[in-house]
């Protein structure tokens, strides 16, 4: 882990939305720190609260029926109660965001270049249109869009999905932000393009010393670029640790499930891909105790009490999880079917 001070610190973040059915606690006590040059992956199923966490950081979840508590500090500055004007200035300028679906994330009626020029000029009023356009051409070059000079004047529908996502990344980086939040940046792309986009993100991260939050449900993506991993389930972090810790010594049965559902090319092909049975609980009717309990094959009496997120293995500081099982028991159990989890490194 790099020794530098964290650029972004999220503490006890709780985000709830008042709905007709009651208060939906979409994010329930999330903590993490992010340092320059680091890639933090937030992993979880749909509805686990990962996107809400990300959007809350840049203030996009603010609304009259949202209840936001806790703290988000960007370089020491508190963002949760910052004014809308402050948040607006910081979006794009200090925190860039890349969204899931590049097909729908550009406005179809404006040229791609002009949409990025718009982002630049929203923050740098003194930058002229031509100057901003030249900057966009440079950016397009740096994210690997060929014929940049010509393509800035294309409309979104004239770009392929992968090129649009590159343009999206160019837009997020236009003002050289300190933090980049990529919300499922590869989900809508096909596999070869995914690999290219991930390589690009990794490269930018190293070159620019960018602090990156990568939100995904795909552990394959995580393995590619992340330094640390946060696994979320039903609004709570159920496990966090370094990439190696999560992949080689996963502690929470939910993490085992996620890892087990990966197709492995280095193993004999199973008849069926393992899956996590059932579906995520409704946030309006969470079970007592551990939220994963109803789907967990290893549930026992103590699970009706909510486990706290803490270090449970002695030799791995910072590797925390929310599961009552004894670490040794976990290691034994996750191997039972031979497919869930991974063997410890030799």
């Amino acid at each position, binding site marked *: 882990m790099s020794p530098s001070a964290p650029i972004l610190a999220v503490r006890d973040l709780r985000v709830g939305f008042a709905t007709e059915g009651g208060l939906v606690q979409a994010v329930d006590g999330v903590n993490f720190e992010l340092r320059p040059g680091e890639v933090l992956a937030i992993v979880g199923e749909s509805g686990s609260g990962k996107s809400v966490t990300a959007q809350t950081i*840049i203030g*996009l979840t603010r609304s009259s029926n949202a209840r936001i508590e806790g703290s988000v500090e960007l370089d020491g500055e508190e963002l949760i109660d910052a004014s*809308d004007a402050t948040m*607006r*200035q*910081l*979006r*794009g*300028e200090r925190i860039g*965001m890349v*969204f*899931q*679906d590049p097909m*729908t*994330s*550009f*406005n*179809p*009626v404006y040229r791609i270049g002009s949409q990025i020029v*718009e*982002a630049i000029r*929203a*923050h740098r009023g003194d930058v002229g249109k031509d100057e901003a356009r030249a900057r966009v051409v440079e950016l397009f070059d740096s994210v690997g869009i060929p014929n940049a000079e010509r393509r800035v004047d294309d*409309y979104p*529908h*004239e770009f392929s999905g992968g090129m649009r996502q590159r343009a*999206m990344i160019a*837009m997020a980086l236009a003002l050289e932000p300190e933090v980049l939040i990529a919300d499922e940046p590869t989900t809508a792309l096909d596999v070869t393009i995914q690999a290219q986009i991930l390589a690009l993100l990794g490269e930018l991260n190293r070159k620019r010393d960018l602090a990156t939050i990568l939100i995904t449900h795909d552990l394959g993506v995580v393995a590619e670029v992340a330094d640390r991993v946060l696994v979320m389930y039903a609004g709570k972090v159920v496990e966090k640790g370094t990439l190696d810790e999560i992949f080689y010594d996963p502690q929470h049965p939910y993490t085992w499930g996620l890892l087990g559902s990966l197709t492995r090319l280095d193993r004999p092909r199973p008849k069926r891909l393992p899956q996590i049975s059932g579906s995520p609980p409704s946030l309006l009717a969470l079970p007592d105790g551990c939220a994963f309990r109803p789907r967990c094959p290893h549930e026992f009496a103590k699970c009706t009490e909510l486990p706290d997120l803490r270090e449970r293995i002695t030799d791995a500081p910072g590797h925390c999880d929310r599961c009552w099982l004894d670490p040794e028991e976990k290691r034994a159990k996750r191997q039972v079917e031979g497919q869930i989890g991974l063997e410890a490194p030799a």
Partner: protein
Amino acid sequence: MGRFVVRRLFGMVAVLFAVSVIVFMIFNVIPNSNPAQALAGKNATPTLVKSIEEEWGFDNSLPEQYVTMMKKVFTGELTSYKPRIPVDEQIFERIPATLSLSIGAGIIWLFFGLLLGYLSALRAGGWLDRLLTGVAVAGISIPVFLIAPVLIYFLTYKVEIFPNAQYVPLTEDPWEWLTHLILPWFTLAILSIGFYSRVLRSNMLDVMNEDYVRTARAKGLSERKVMTRHVLRNSLIPIITLFGLDFGATIAGTAIITEVLYSLDGVGSYAAEAATKFELPPIMGVTLYGAFFVVFINALVDIVYAYLDPRVRLGETASA
């Protein structure tokens, strides 16, 4: 773009041709439509009717009659039966009144409809939105033939703010033209103001949920820019189509009731007159005039559309 315009022009001619054939056929299929009998009068002798038939060409075959009539349309010789007045003269004489009424009303309904819709969408769910919703529903529900007498009664009779009816040509006296038209304009526009404000409101609420609006916020645009450049701009595209259809239809006929109520001697009242007298030449003339405007304005809309939505432009070059 050139090919696009040419293609549209061909389309227009085809539509006008189809309309003329249909009107002609309907007129001849409807029973009790021997115009010679009507021209000859109640106590006419069969010889008189016969001679009129020959004189007007009613005894020719239908295709022949159609061709003769269309020739007259193009040479401007189309005349009504009783009295014998050239149809095109009648229409052209009345076009200024109809266009003044329709264009003015169109501008008013577009302006107020969009303004109210925009405010409604910005404050969706709030008291202003609810108030404007009520106003819009009232505007849509109250029929023109109720609004007009009420306005006339209160604003020209009780309190003499506006002059009573009649069309004053713009070239004659612009001020009188304006004051005479204000009530008719609003009468004609009120339904569309309500309707357009509802449509724009719902378009905007849809667009607000689009991913690109979230992107616009994420890049740090001010809320005003997000709303105008991204939400409003994209919400206007369907409105343009709607306006083209409605505006064409207004010129072609919707204005009739308002024209009659305010005694504006426009094409609408001529059309109503022609329909009651059941004479083919004026009906044909008025129908072609109406169809022309509908088709022409829709062609304009398509061109504007291509400008507003680049995806349409692509489709055009691909198929051209």
